[in-house]
């Protein structure tokens, strides 16, 4: 009820992790960008519960440190934090380099969870809000992935997982700025997957539906809202089973295929 995460996984995993440590072999480290809240925070818990060391990145260091202590105390993994702001384009290379260096050779993959829904109404008039939505969800995210992709390409292995959104599958009047930025990210990830396939790096696109995070809390009643913990568990499994594109929960794939079938002539008349 409170901790709906998996228990600490199969016992043999736990033991092998401990043996690894005693043997001096590094435990796999995962970098989580945007770990402070929502799905990012739940994913950090999910990876930690499966005995991965973590490098947490985000803007609020005080919060990241609190989460780092928490995950270390719960799961006995080593967790570090670095300040990264995807909107600070000029500093992206250096701040991500610090993450990569901090994580060291044991870095096996990255999950990018940064996102900003913003306020679609405000963004119609306020270009700053519009730009923040586009920059967080597309430009900043894609630039960060650009830097990380080169690192993993050099390494010749690893995974890159990024949170896009079902909103990117088709533009709707209520959130097309957010949706178009996420749609752009989806396309970026397609290309990146194609490029990195040839050097052994796997790219996973995750498209969450409604998740009970700050983005939806307090909004009018939405149907089919999933918990961040449930979504995190599915993302973890998708990474482990090397999926290419996953909808979480799975039924959003069905919903979005139906939405995709509606002819544009009809779609434009709908209010959604």
């Amino acid at each position, binding site marked *: *009820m*409170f*901790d709906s995460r998996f228990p600490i996984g199969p016992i043999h995993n736990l033991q092998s992790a401990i043996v690894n440590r005693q043997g001096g072999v590094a435990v796999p480290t995962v970098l989580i960008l945007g770990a*402070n*809240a*929502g799905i990012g*925070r739940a994913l950090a818990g999910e990876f930690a519960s499966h005995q991965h060391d973590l490098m947490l990145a985000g803007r*609020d260091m*005080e*919060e990241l440190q*609190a*989460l780092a*202590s*928490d995950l270390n*105390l*719960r799961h006995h993994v080593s967790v570090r934090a670095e300040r990264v702001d995807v909107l600070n384009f000029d500093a992206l290379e250096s701040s991500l380099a610090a993450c990569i260096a901090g994580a060291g050779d044991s870095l096996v993959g990255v999950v990018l969870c940064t996102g900003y829904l913003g*306020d679609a109404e405000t963004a119609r008039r306020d270009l700053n809000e519009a730009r923040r939505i586009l920059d967080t969800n597309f430009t900043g995210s894609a630039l960060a992935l650009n830097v990380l992709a080169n690192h993993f390409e050099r390494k010749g292995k690893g995974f890159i997982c990024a949170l896009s959104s079902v909103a990117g599958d088709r533009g709707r009047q209520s959130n097309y700025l957010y949706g178009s930025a996420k749609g752009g990210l989806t396309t970026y990830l397609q290309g990146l997957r194609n490029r990195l396939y040839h050097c052994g790096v796997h790219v996973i696109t995750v498209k969450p539906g409604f998740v009970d995070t*700050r983005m939806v*809390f*307090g*909004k009018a009643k939405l149907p089919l809202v999933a918990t961040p913990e449930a979504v995190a568990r599915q993302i973890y499994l998708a990474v482990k089973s090397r999926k290419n594109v996953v909808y979480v929960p799975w039924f959003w794939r069905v919903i979005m295929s139906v939405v995709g079938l509606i002819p544009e002539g009809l779609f434009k008349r709908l209010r959604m």
Partner: protein
Amino acid sequence: MKPAFATKQLSGWGRYPVESCHLFRPEKRSGVAATLASGLQPSYISRGLGRSYGDAALNQNAGVIWHILLNRFLSFDSASGVLECESGVSLAEIIQYFLPRGWFLPVTPGTKFVSVGGAIAADIHGKNHHQDGSLSNFVLDFRLLVPTGEVLLCSPSLNPEIFWATVGGMGLTGVLLSTRLQLRRVDSAYVFVDFHKASNLDDALATMEASDDRYDYSVAWIDGLATGKTMGRSVLMRGNHAAAAELPARVRHALAAPTVPQWNLFVDFPSWTLNRLTVKAFNTAYYAVHRTVPRQLVSFEKFFYPLDAIDQWNRMYGKRGFVQYQIALPQASGRSGLRAILDRLARSGRASFLAVLKRFGDAGPGLLSFPLRGYTLALDIPAARGLVPFLHELDRMTLDFGGRIYLAKDAVLRAGDFAAMYPKLEDFRAIKRKLDPQRLLSSSLARRLGIVD
């Protein structure tokens, strides 16, 4: 951007009353201060897991700050057993992660599904109150966000007057951000329990008086429906933590008790499920199956949290809910007070499904803390017509015997009776006025009892 809130029909664990509240769910510590400063609501009260029974964590048509996401462990010293954590951490989480390392809660109520913040705000007691006192004895210090926006470090030596107003202060002095708690070293996840059947109230009280001091934990199930010569018949369950060396060979992991299967009441039972007949049948059976036996090995789950095995057990009482009524009576008048109240309850025709009796040790310095040296009796009474006047009658009886009501469970007490039960109320009000002149922290309970006007 202003923090978002959701308007919800909320209730406590007793599901009575149900009120419309504006729920905020900060994800960051800074979000709590931002909510208080937002000007969106006239007042706010903190809420954790919603296990107080009445309206302590409700704020009708005003703000409720839900600490569910502020639940991080911040530090732990494995040598001293000092744990620092945020208020939304549940006691269940502390057990889950620290019992395997040999540390248990210093004080625990009858459910592990309460938050640390709520536990401090109610200055909870447990089955060890006669030995160890209430939770505040194990709170080393906490960081309190007060309505002016300042964060104060409070302990029995630092800001002591705020510390003793905050423990038991029902969330009205400030918002608890983080706390350092002293955990208790244990050797195993088991308790050796001596069961003793007491044929009536005198027997039960005499046995407790004679030998409670030999036990870390002592509690009695009491038959709230027995009358006449058997009135107050009880099953005393008293125990001590088992040392690892004392455990039988079949117990393979001293610190990992087998998990209890979880049941869930998915539906509301009809409100008549627990009536006089069914409760009487249950009580007779419960009393009959227990024997006076020493040294039974019981896992901590079964000993401390028998009801936690049933998720949403409160639905047993149906849609109308129930009131948990818990009183403390001073040592001197305890016996006659318990007799009078049990007698009144039996004559009322209302059935208390669960009645629990235990001895309290000395009262602590908390201004609104509940325990006082003597006895405490807890009853579960289904909400039905005429319940409120009946409870008001019990309130007066309790007051006449020098006793008081536990605020974490209360839903009906009146301001006048409350003031008479808690003599340090004026001291509390003075501190509250100083810390919160704008009355930014308030709750439905605080207004009902006239703590905040």
